């Protein structure tokens, strides 16, 4: 969080157990559970992806199956949503509750799911056009509010579904159907934008680095707040080779961010402190292809928590009165 933004100390808020709030909330009851079977890749596999052969998104999907296998959330409590674009086809290929919303608005939709139901694990997938262009405003505000959900942006630097137009992350000079002589506008810097917006978990990965992706997505899912992973995922059809500079198999260098261990050793001084906002900015402004890993990770009350506290305080004031009594009292005041 930027120091220029006035912040309310967490300590000032009454500490309430989220689960206690959920229990006292009649509209939030979870169903009685039957014996669980572990969630496996087989159980998670749905339609065969419609992506082009060689698309980076296949690897992201495979990594996501592994993340869910690792996390072992109740199958019915996993939600996979997306907006519009090639990568946003994702939910059709994952057998969980989920769906396909409109272009750019998957984050507010998912915020509604997350704020409506504390018992769910909400994952949102999308591309650079969905997240940084048409949905840019929502990215900023979902980050600012720190809504608890995980957002995976499969960034390919081009509009693929509509067949090669300039995207907000296309580099200057990139030739597309809308910029035949080369893109001229300054592209978005996703990491910098996210740090500035107040996201509380920000990571960057590469679709050719499966283990790295699994690690980043797992830690994002475990983060209590708004977590974002930008994955560079190559569009073989319209922007082949875009991310070779960070792919060792193509002669590039995948530079992993080493996180501070706070072990007092001299080499620890040069490691990255993910709670240091300025250090995150510095990483974000490295020359192409930059570094990969966790740029920023801090604890800040989630909107989910703040709303639950608001409910708890309101119920304390009304002495936990039932819905009928509450509404009757409102009418009585207007007699």
């Amino acid at each position, binding site marked *: 969080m930027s120091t220029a933004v006035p912040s309310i100390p967490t300590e000032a808020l009454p500490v309430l157990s989220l689960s206690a709030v959920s229990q*006292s*909330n*009649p*509209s*939030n*009851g*979870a*169903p009685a559970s*039957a014996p669980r079977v572990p969630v496996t890749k087989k*159980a998670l596999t*749905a*339609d065969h992806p419609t992506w082009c052969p060689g698309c980076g998104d296949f690897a992201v999907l495979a990594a996501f199956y592994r993340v869910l296998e690792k996390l072992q959330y109740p*199958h*019915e*409590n*996993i939600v996979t949503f997306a907006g519009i674009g090639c990568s946003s086809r994702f*939910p*059709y290929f994952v*057998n969980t*509750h*989920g*769906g*396909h*919303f*409109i272009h*750019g*608005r998957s984050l*507010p*939709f*998912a*915020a*509604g*799911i*997350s*704020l*409506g*139901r504390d*018992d*769910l694990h909400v994952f949102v997938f999308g591309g650079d056009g969905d997240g940084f262009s048409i949905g840019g*405003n*929502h990215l*900023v*505000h979902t980050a600012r509010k720190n809504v608890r959900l995980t957002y995976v942006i499969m960034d390919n630097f081009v509009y693929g579904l509509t067949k090669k137009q300039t995207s907000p992350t296309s580099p200057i000079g990139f030739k597309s159907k809308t910029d035949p002589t080369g893109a001229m506008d300054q592209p978005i810097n996703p990491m910098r934008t996210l740090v500035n917006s107040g996201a509380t978990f920000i990571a960057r990965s590469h679709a050719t680095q499966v283990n790295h992706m699994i690690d980043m997505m797992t830690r994002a899912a475990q983060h209590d707040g708004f977590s974002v992973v930008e994955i560079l995922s190559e569009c073989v059809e319209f922007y082949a080779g875009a991310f070779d500079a960070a792919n060792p198999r193509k002669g590039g260098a995948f530079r992993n961010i080493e996180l501070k261990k706070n072990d007092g050793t001299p080499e620890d001084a040069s490691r990255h402190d993910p709670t240091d906002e300025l250090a995150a900015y510095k990483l974000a402004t490295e020359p192409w292809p930059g570094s990969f890993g966790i740029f920023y990770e801090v604890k800040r009350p989630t909107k989910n928590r703040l*709303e639950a506290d*608001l*409910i708890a*305080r*309101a*119920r304390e*004031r*009304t002495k936990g*009165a039932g*819905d*009928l009594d*509450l*509404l009757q009292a*409102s*009418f009585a005041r*207007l*007699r």
Partner: protein
Amino acid sequence: MVGSNFPTAGAVTPGASLVQTVPDAVIRLAGNSQDGIQTIGGFLARLAGRSDQDVMTYMTIPSTISGGPSIFQVRMGTGEILSAGDHADFLVAFYQHSYDAHIHSLRPGGVLVYDSDHVKPDPEDKRFTAVGIPITSLTVEAVGGATKDKGKNIFVLGLLARAFNLDVEKLRALVTERFGGRAEDIVRNAMLAFDAGYAMPVENLLGHCYRFDQNPRAAGQRQQVTMDGNTALTYGLLAAGVRHGSGYPITPWSSIMEMLRTELPKYGGVFVQAEDELSAVSQALGFSYSGHLAVTGSSGPGLSLKMEALGWAVMAEMPLIVVNVQRGGPSTGLPTNVEQSDLLQAIYGSHGDAPRVVLAPRDVEDCFYIAIEAGRIAREYSTPVLILSDFGLATRIEAFEEPDLKKLMADPKPDLSGRGADYKPYPLERTTRHAPPGSRMDSGVYPVVTGLEHDEMGHPTGSPELHTKMTAKRREKIKRLAASLPVPEVFGEAKGDVLVVGWGSTFGPIRDAVKTLRAAGEKIGQVHLRHVHPLPPGLEEIFLNYRHICVVEMNDEGLYGHGQLATLLRARYANPAIRSIAKTDGLTFKVREIVEGIKRLQTTTGSNGKSHA
């Protein structure tokens, strides 16, 4: 007879009783918006409600940040009050500009009370009984201290209490309730101002004072509650089991979201102020997807911004309530005036063939019940339901019988029960029943909800046959709803010369106009639509019983000479007797305007009252 049944002030014969009994009175308070005239107007309305009287208010506010001329009109009394009154019986003018702008609204023979510290009335104008009272200086004198002229609204309340023999104890209680909880001297100052106003011997200045007919409550009738339309709509949403929602500020919708933001946490719910209208409708749909029927709302321009997501809601068959408190348009238009020009947007806005449900409350009481109806339909038919209120209804105060909540409260719990092996998110032969996340699937297959055309399992499809069938499925469920609706009730003559058709907030003035014309011997009836889309059954047969069908609405007659509902009805029933009484002055219909409109249509043929030579 149009307007109230208030006697003429000058017509009192000497020696007659000093107290005149009146059935009702129209009191117009004209000042500036910061003078608190809305506050005392509200007190008068609440007093009427508490005294088992009927009441309706009407207000204008400037579209400025603070200040500017404003009026509050209260019509209170015995019997059914259907409109706020075409003319005032009693005008209180705080400033010269109030006098200049509103003296024309005073009925000849009516009473003008003016603040002689600020107003110099035309001495030649003998049409009214004019009473000058130095309201400002008397208030300052009574309250003292550094409050300047603050409290002159309460002074006027005291004055009106004396002039109309109002229940002083009830009024004091209302003032104390309103200001109680704040600093003690605020209540004390209010009481000092009230007493000073009440001490004015207005009966001597007017020659008499008034008293309303008594109206004892009928056996079994519940106590009255008094509120504005936005409050009633908010409470209706709570009764409908809506516990989640999202919105973005825009006049005149904002007060609904403010109330929901305050109320919902008590009910364990969440209302989110979104970053924009697109986010608001999306978050509301996310809540609905999570199993909690949610609400979003806006006013005209904001509804336009929600249209893409509404198309998704139709395609994905997601329940949702969308409130649209209409104002004058297009664009920013007249943000603090009334219009019914969003009907076609509500029905046909969005892209593609996207049938959805549109309801319109007819008065403040109906704002409460229509929200419950919206909740029922949204759940039962898994569809977005739009509620079209308007600025007039949102800000108008009425008294109505307190609802029997025990019988009305809907269960807000999401249905997270396991779904059987045969569950399909989009069955062709049945109405969609959304399975929210958390529901276990016996089949092991989890549903995908989607805005892409899909098969019964939610898989995307480009099949011409499936798109035809799914489009029909979404259409047929709305037709099933239509078939289940009650045939609209006809008020007045079941057969005759004229049928007046309306929708939304014009109900009261239309009913008054129909009553007026019936009393004058016209064969006239009224149908008022609450279910605007789909249309209820039986209208075609009802229309055949009349020579003229006059559709009254506050929107433009358009390029083809018919208002928005009239256009729809003509397309649907192909009945050339359907014609329009439409207007676009941004003000609620006066009864006189409707009466004149009907007479014009009766004597002409062809479109919209223009005679074909």
